[in-house]
């Protein structure tokens, strides 16, 4: 198991990355939009700590935390969000469309579900031990193709871990206005084993994910992990319609960083934070100085 410090470092890296992004956005440093992961960091860190080389991750519009926990570099992600040639996808994808190694993300909710199932089946067909982790939010659970995909995954034995991060709000629509019945029952209906947590503690999520990964690798059949979580920031930028007092109360009691920081010596924590602060600042400055893509990239991309 990773040390408390290693897990905290990842949580803190994601937090500082996202805070830097939100702070710099109004200055025009970034182009387009962004969906930050602040408050949900323990999910990505606790789950993706169990990846083996070759395992596949499919992420969604809120993908920065997943990407960084997967091992992606802050510099490449800053550069991508700035539209620089040095970005993860040379600026062509932007915030929601990343591909690096075996990590993929797309911005159309739920559309990734069958594709993730297909990647897992392909690896199984090739005799590879790789599995696939698919991150969905509660909002994506409104898309019909997700249920077609659950059916196929169960029917055809796709080694996919469906991770639903239920932050109880889809853009501005509270879950109770969008979801009938129970999320867990939706997986159970397809015979997919499901485990549900309500915690922002990376230790708790790590432990639950450990047994999911072990079972997934053993049975090579789909499983589901529902993570009830809290989004501290807006959906995108400045579109938070929730009571600020409610969000503040979560920050006070459920901040994954606070929960994990309590397990570290204060001095060690401060040293770690300073190191990450410097790393993020360096990554940002480097991305800022990087060149924009040249025009031919527009017509060359995808045509080889």
């Amino acid at each position, binding site marked *: 198991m990773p040390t408390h410090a290693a897990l905290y470092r990842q949580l803190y890296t994601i937090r500082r990355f996202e805070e830097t992004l939100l702070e710099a956005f109004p200055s025009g440093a970034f182009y387009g939009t962004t969906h930050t992961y602040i408050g949900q960091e323990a999910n990505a860190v606790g789950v993706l700590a169990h990846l083996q080389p070759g395992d596949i991750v499919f992420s969604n519009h809120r993908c920065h935390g997943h990407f960084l926990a997967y091992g992606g570099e802050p510099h490449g992600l800053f550069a991508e969000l700035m539209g620089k040639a040095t970005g993860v996808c*040379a600026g062509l994808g932007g915030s929601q469309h990343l591909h690096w190694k075996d990590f993929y993300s797309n911005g159309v909710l739920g559309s990734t579900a*069958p594709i993730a199932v297909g990647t897992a089946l*392909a690896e199984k067909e090739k005799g590879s031990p790789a599995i696939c982790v698919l991150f969905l939010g509660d909002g994506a659970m409104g898309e019909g193709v997700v249920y077609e*995909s659950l*059916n196929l995954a169960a029917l055809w034995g796709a080694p996919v871990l469906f991770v639903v991060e239920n932050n109880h709000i889809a853009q501005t629509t509270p879950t109770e206005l969008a979801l009938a019945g129970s999320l867990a029952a939706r997986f159970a209906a397809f015979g997919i084993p499901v485990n549900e947590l309500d915690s922002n503690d990376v230790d708790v999520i790590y432990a639950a994910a450990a047994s999911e990964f072990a079972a997934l690798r053993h049975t090579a059949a789909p499983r589901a992990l529902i993570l009830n979580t809290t989004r501290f920031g807006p959906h995108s930028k400045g579109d938070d319609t929730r009571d600020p007092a409610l969000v503040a109360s979560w920050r006070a009691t459920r901040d994954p960083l606070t929960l994990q920081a309590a397990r570290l010596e204060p001095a060690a924590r401060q040293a770690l934070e300073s190191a990450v602060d410097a790393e993020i600042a360096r990554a940002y400055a480097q991305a800022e100085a990087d060149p924009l893509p040249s025009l031919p990239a527009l017509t*060359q991309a995808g045509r080889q």
Partner: protein
Amino acid sequence: MTSVLEALTRGLHAAFAQDGRVYLIGEDLLDPYGGAFKVSRGLSSQYPGRVWSSPVSEAAITGVAAGMALRGLRPVVELMFGDFSTLIADQLINSITKFPAMFNGTVRVPIVIRTPMGGRRGYGPTHSQTLEKLYLGVPGLRVLAPNTLSDPGELLRRAILEQDDPVFFVENKVLYPKPVLDAQTLQDFEIEQTQGEFAPVHTLRLKGAPPPTLTLSAYGYMAELAREALTRLAFEHEIFAELVVPTQLAPLPAGGGLEPALAAALQRSGRLLTIEEGTYSLGWGAEQLARASQALGPRLLAARRLAAHEAPIPAVRALEEAALPSVADILRTAREMV
């Protein structure tokens, strides 16, 4: 003689035999049924592990195939009816064709989606449409439509094995029983076959005919009707035309140019009549006419298109026939143009 259906089945079998990465996913594929139109017959017996007969979940099977393609396999999706392609539009437009470009060329998605299109079978409004025009112009998507002038199975085999980017493969369902034409059958015609960017283009004219005053262009099954019209125009109306039959509908040449074989034919005739089974407005023919106008300017003497009526295709035979372009429509329009 080999029928188009037999040729396509052979092409699929050849692709399966040649490359273990080829998979087929679709509904009702298992033998003895072998798919609703029987194109996939025999495959599930010969390659049981690589033919996945699926639930009625077009979007998901297309997405699954996309995932398989991302990870190095070469999946083929059979959509039972082209009308159901609307169910896969998100996968096609927002994932399959986007990934290579938005991921900066770091991935390829070699997937072939084959589907029967077209009417004249009495299947009514939701099982008779010609919908490929919805997907023409989607960047990154190759749209192919086989015809009887060259082996549709070989085209399919090449699409599966040689294309690293997504292909939408349109099989007109009335073509299935038609023979793939041989030299004997085509002996009245002088045929020029040119190689387009990926697929062949055929230019037909009657042997010994005077210089053409009209160019017909049609693909798929409409090329059959256009070929019949070509002969009747000559013998019944003394109008000498050429017929250009493309196999690739998209992408078209970059920069707005015409397919070279069509450009060459128009240089000779100055008049273009396009014939398609899709609806009239904003379609394949409209694009050809726009390009012809751009390429020829004032030397374009006449430009018309024939297409389906802009209404749902009726189930009743007489009205279905009236809704779709016929040989008589081609003859009438051609006579008005020359």
